[in-house]
């Protein structure tokens, strides 16, 4: 019993340390329409939490992440497109806030890497086969 109480205390303190207010209405509540919820969830998984910087807002318990989840769900419910919300957030926090890679020039090597590696592999294979055939 005592152990359980201690465990509860451990859980309760960090939550209370953030803010006294209850979470925003749609922070932890799914949208009624499954298709909309799917859209909102997909977006939330690729938006980075500002408080816990290595988590998406879908994974984070930070109160600000909860507020962002609620805002995203409400905006999707109002008919806004997920990509429009992403653009809106990037205009405020920069590319940093989105986990989705963009087509910015700095990422061109990333997109080119699979093609370059594939081409290298084909070249290697061709030279090997040629050598085998000769010997």
């Amino acid at each position: 019993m005592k152990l359980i109480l201690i465990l509860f205390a451990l859980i309760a303190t960090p939550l209370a340390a953030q803010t006294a207010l209850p979470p925003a209405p749609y922070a932890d509540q799914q949208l009624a329409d499954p298709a909309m919820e799917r859209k909102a969830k997909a977006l939330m998984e690729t938006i980075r939490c500002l408080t816990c910087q290595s988590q998406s807002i879908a994974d984070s318990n930070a109160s600000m992440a909860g507020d962002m989840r609620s805002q995203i769900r409400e905006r999707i419910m109002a008919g806004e497109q997920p990509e429009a919300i992403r653009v809106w957030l990037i205009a405020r926090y920069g590319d940093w806030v989105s986990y989705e890679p963009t087509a910015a020039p700095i990422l061109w090597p990333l997109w080119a890497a699979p093609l370059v590696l594939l081409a290298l592999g084909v070249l290697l294979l061709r030279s090997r086969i040629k050598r085998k055939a000769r010997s």
Partner: protein
Amino acid sequence: MRKLLIWLPLALFLGFIALFSSGLFQPDDRIIHSRLVGQPLPAFTLPAAASDRPPLASSQLASGQPRLLNIFASWCVPCAAEAPQLDALKAAGVQIDAIAIRDARPDVDAFLKRNGNPYARIGLDARSEVQIALGSSGVPETFVIDGKGRIAYQHVGEIRADDVPMILDRLRAAQ
């Protein structure tokens, strides 16, 4: 050619070592600055957060004079730590308005009673909506707003005693 190629893995390895060790000595900057610096404030209208201060709307911040917009919360410890610096800024004649994030009026009242109240107006942003619209990533933060209502500067984190002259300079520059 073949002879040189033998050294390629070693060269790559040394390259990575150099990259990683240079990363060890670079200070880790995790501050996310708002991209709205230099742009007009997003429009907002907020209800009053404290019993004895009027509410805040974005239109009131384009007053012809540069001013400060402080983002704080009663539950935020560093916000209490920056209170003396805000008092010093107010004593220097600076207009300071505030937005209280995820807060409730009794809590804000108690916070202001404890730490002093340098604010002219305080808006209540109960669901961080204006905070997100501002591109602010936490509390406390302080925005310098120029006379036309544009964001001239964003200070992330609490204002320390040695930041006060810099903030005053920023206000002067926003004139």
